[in-house]
């Protein structure tokens, strides 16, 4: 905000030069200063070496029987064929997608509620806002360790005291409930980021719109449904896309809470792939990684299509 105005202030003195500068831009269009290449090429080279090359090496090894050490030979698409027959891999995909979908929904509901609250006329707004954004600056792993104790010690003791027997044992040790604990901590950790985007959205809504609605006698719930929500739909789409993608790759919170257990009930795809480094099934997990990449790519393409369609309809 401040910079743009500063730019605007300093712009006029440059104006007398504008005919010359126009000529300058025309010239630079045909012949580019080599300095610009120096600005980009080293970064591109490092990027290719550290990001693109490992990806290609990974695809290559997914076609071999490399165990992570020793000899290897090409085995074609055998790894891929085996993955489709592997119930453990299928289980990790199911867990990851159910988890990511649930978390996306809950995070967005919670974040939108917090953003609406922070945007309303409440007292001590600055202080309350400060508190709500604290989780954003904390390490997800350490937060999960703290919650780990709360779930496995504090909650059972409290449950016993109040006679809620189903919760008297740690939910982290329960095959059917452990994933809910992971959802909860992820929501705790991810809600502030989404809230910020919603706050930006809410503040982009002109107040005249609400004044008109007030005059028409619309209640606040009605205003939210038929005014606020449609007007911030773009921000909701961004949150859903960013969130879902992030939650698919979830790792630290699971490590801190369940370590993938009990059994393999909460093992995400990312965790399975990482296990390839120590588990001796390097090439197999690389094939898994390639499949994972293709799935996320497909999702990205679908999401981009949806955004573009929205863009047209707006």
């Amino acid at each position, binding site marked *: 905000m401040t910079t743009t105005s500063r*730019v605007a202030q300093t712009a006029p003195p440059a104006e007398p030069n504008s005919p010359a500068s126009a000529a300058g831009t025309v010239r*630079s*269009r045909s012949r580019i200063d080599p300095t610009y290449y120096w600005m980009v090429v080293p970064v591109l080279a490092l990027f290719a070496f550290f990001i693109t090359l490992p990806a290609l090496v990974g695809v290559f090894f997914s076609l071999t029987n490399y165990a992570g050490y020793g000899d290897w030979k090409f085995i074609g698409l055998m790894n891929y064929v085996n993955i489709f027959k592997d119930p453990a891999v299928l289980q990790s995909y199911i867990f990851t997608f159910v988890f990511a979908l649930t978390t996306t929904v809950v995070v967005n509901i919670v974040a939108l509620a917090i953003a609406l609250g922070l945007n309303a006329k409440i007292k001590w707004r600055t202080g309350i806002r400060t508190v709500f954004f604290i989780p954003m*600056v904390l390490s997800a792993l350490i937060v999960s360790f703290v919650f780990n104790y709360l779930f496995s010690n504090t909650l059972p003791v409290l449950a016993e005291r109040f006679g809620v027997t189903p919760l008297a044992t740690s939910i982290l040790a329960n095959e059917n409930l452990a994933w809910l604990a992971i959802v909860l901590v992820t929501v705790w950790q991810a809600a502030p980021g989404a809230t910020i985007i919603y706050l930006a959205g809410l503040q982009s809504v002109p107040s005249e719109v609400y004044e008109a609605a007030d005059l028409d006698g619309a209640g606040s719930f009605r205003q939210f449904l038929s005014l606020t929500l449609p007007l911030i739909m773009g921000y909701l789409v961004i949150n859903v896309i960013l969130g879902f993608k992030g939650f698919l790759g979830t790792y630290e919170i699971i490590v801190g809470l369940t370590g993938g257990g009990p059994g393999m009930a909460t093992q995400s795809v*990312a965790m399975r792939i990482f296990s390839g480094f120590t588990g001796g099934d390097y090439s197999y997990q690389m094939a898994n990684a390639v499949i994972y990449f293709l799935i996320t790519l497909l999702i990205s393409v679908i999401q981009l299509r949806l955004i573009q369609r929205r863009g047209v309809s707006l």
Partner: protein
Amino acid sequence: MTASTLAAPKQRTADAPVRGHRRSNREGFKINWWLTALMLAASLTVLLPLYFTVAMALKSPDQIGTGTGLAWPNPMNWENFAAAYVATNFPRAFMSTAFVTVLSVLGSLASSSLVAYAIARNWNHRFFRGSFVYLLSAMFIPFPVIILPLIKQTALLGLDNPAGVVFLHVLGGISFNTLLYIAFVRSIPVELEESARMDGATTWQVFRKIIFPLLAPMNATVGIFAFLGSWNDFLLPQMLIADPALQTLPVVQMLFQGEFNTNYSLAFASYLMAMAPTLVVYILAQRWVLSGVMRGAVK
């Protein structure tokens, strides 16, 4: 009423819209007390786990016993911090984390602003537009896909240490950061630099003296994201750094999951010490941090 008029200018600098401010004045600022109470209650979901962490860190193992852990300890056990300091070799882990974080922030600021400037100013040239698309493509590559080959590659190069983590933090964030910068560079009129060029400034000088200072708000945004991402990262240090003595603070906390797993007071003291730096910085500079993050959100 006085409280609200005091609070209003503060909010405006951070993020509250001027329009909303005007509107509330016209209608009279009527505080919604029910909502305030609700929000205060909801903020307990954040405060309680933090309170719990502090309470646990100040307990002796006896005080933890078999209770809920929610009670405040009496007397408080400050020795836990000293013990955790020694057990985790805190100074070394702290220095390692600080090394990775500082270099990642500087690297991110320098590399993505340069790349964004070069690309934005040569947008109609195929090479630069191609570079942009190439860098952006990384946003579609999930991290698990490259990690296994990457571990081997960094080990071969002798980069299985904090320096290797710095490279990957910078390169991993470059797509997003460049995206943020490009939009900003485009809003800077070319005329500004052309007049400097008339006076004989080279492209480097133009960037350093004119463009980079003007990018200040975006530098703050990119810097905050890089700082938080780097300081709190667990995955990359855990996977890449081979020597346990060079591990970063989040990874060091894994220690309490194994050999010490019964000594919770020590563990929580250590957690608190690892969380404190970002927490303190955030609380001291919260308005600045939030406006920086907000700028990233609007883009």
